[in-house]
């Protein structure tokens, strides 16, 4: 996942909600520009052409009335446009949806893909995949403090409130990778709380979803097997889950399919062997204050562990 191919812009809408918001943004931009130009013209005019005759109250009354009327009409137009955009953004057909339960944590995103069949639900982190052209329902909440979900190319902001679940709809019409960002200050690493949304064809999405539903692949090489043992006997299992093993911690991101993700630590680092090693040993140097403690593993164990983690496709 490279920076160049990832979009994060309100002005490049990739779906109907973002398009409504972009239209409203442009309307406000042009109205504000017009107001600025007109007001500036009057100020310049007043400076250049000084009044020569005495002030006349009847002219003043007309001028003030016109000014107030123009302001009220402009604000009313913007109000109507804003309310209309709000309504348009909130309405989307509910047929054939994908439901994702998104929970904000300090400082990462937990996503559960809902399904009518409980065994088909699965948990992942920091990366969402959505099918193009199908509405997606996001049920958002928070685990600790208030966060805010904001993928500018797809929708506006929605706060994630602890103890309270709200739902928003969105839809992507253009395939691509869109970057989201926590938009409500949530603590020390607020800035390093990114979320990548991959919008892809329905087939690609279903393939991805089928794979995510599976339990973690069993290691096939000796090194990977030993690496799994390192994982299972260390502190990792207190917070992380790898489905298909006894590791079932729920405090940190689910690692069942870690190797399919492009980044680690909520978009902080690319998911490469070296970065992963640094993160495991001393995550506090990359993201001070995050809840992963430093781990001192012997070099051999660390290499085995990395080999195992890299097999988690």
């Amino acid at each position: 996942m490279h920076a160049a191919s990832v979009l994060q812009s309100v002005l490049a809408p990739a779906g109907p909600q973002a398009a409504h918001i972009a239209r409203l943004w442009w309307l406000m931009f042009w109205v504000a520009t017009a107001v600025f130009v007109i007001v500036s013209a009057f100020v310049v005019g007043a400076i250049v052409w000084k009044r020569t005759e005495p002030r006349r109250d009847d002219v003043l009354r007309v001028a003030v009335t016109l000014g107030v009327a123009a302001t009220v009409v402009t604000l009313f137009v913007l109000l109507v446009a804003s309310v209309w955009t709000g309504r348009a953004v909130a309405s989307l057909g509910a047929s054939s949806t994908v439901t994702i339960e998104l929970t904000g944590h300090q400082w990462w995103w937990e996503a559960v893909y809902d399904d009518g069949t409980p065994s088909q639900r699965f948990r992942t982190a920091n990366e969402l995949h959505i099918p193009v052209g199908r509405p997606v329902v996001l049920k958002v909440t928070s685990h600790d403090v208030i966060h805010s979900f904001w993928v500018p190319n797809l929708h506006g902001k929605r706060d994630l409130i602890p103890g309270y679940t709200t739902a928003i709809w969105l839809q992507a019409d253009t395939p691509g990778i869109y970057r989201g960002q926590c938009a409500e200050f949530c603590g020390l690493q607020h800035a390093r709380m990114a979320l990548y949304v991959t919008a892809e064809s329905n087939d690609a999405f279903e393939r991805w979803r089928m794979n995510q539903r599976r339990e973690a692949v069993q290691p096939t090489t000796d090194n990977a097997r030993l690496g799994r043992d390192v994982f299972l006997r260390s502190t990792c299992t207190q917070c992380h889950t790898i489905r298909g093993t006894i590791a079932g911690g729920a405090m940190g991101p689910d690692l069942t399919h870690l190797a399919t993700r492009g980044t680690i630590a909520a978009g902080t680092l690319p998911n490469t062997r070296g970065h992963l090693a640094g993160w495991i040993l001393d995550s506090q140097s990359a993201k001070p204050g995050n809840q992963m403690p430093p781990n001192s593993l012997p070099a051999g164990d660390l290499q085995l562990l990395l080999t195992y983690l890299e097999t988690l496709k």
Partner: protein
Amino acid sequence: MRTELVLIAAMAVAVCGCKRETRTFRESPPASMASDVAVSDLHPGGGNPPARSISPYEQNAWALNEGKRLFSAYNCSGCHANGGGGMGPALIDDEWSYGHEADQIYRTILEGRPNGMPAWRGKIPDAQIWQLAAYIRSMSGLAPKDAAPSRSDHMNGPPPENAAPRMIPKNAGTPPAAER
């Protein structure tokens, strides 16, 4: 004018005493020094019991709060129920089966105790066990009052830890077996 100047000078001196609490994210645990922990005052041969280790985290609000967060994150509440006790003993009262000192609590968490307390050695990093020990002491008012973890998120919780009544530990240091 003179009085004001004196007052300002006094305030300036007082401000010099302010210290910003440090948050150490990369913890080096207070050594695994608790290798020699006495759970009772009884000592064979009449010698002195080993010196107490004090948790450096008791005076640090952030570390106390980490202890509080981990207390629910690691599901200590599953047995100890926010300190009120359930399957496991209460932690907000004055009874300590295996000692109320920080190093004794550390040892209890690290090695487990009979009849239910599992051993967490190798599962919880050392520094976090010390943070938990500091928080557990604050639950019954044994930690200093000037540092407090943040408020509880659940409704109708117990009083804040730094307002908890100080429970003088009963039979401090004497395990029940020694009383018989």
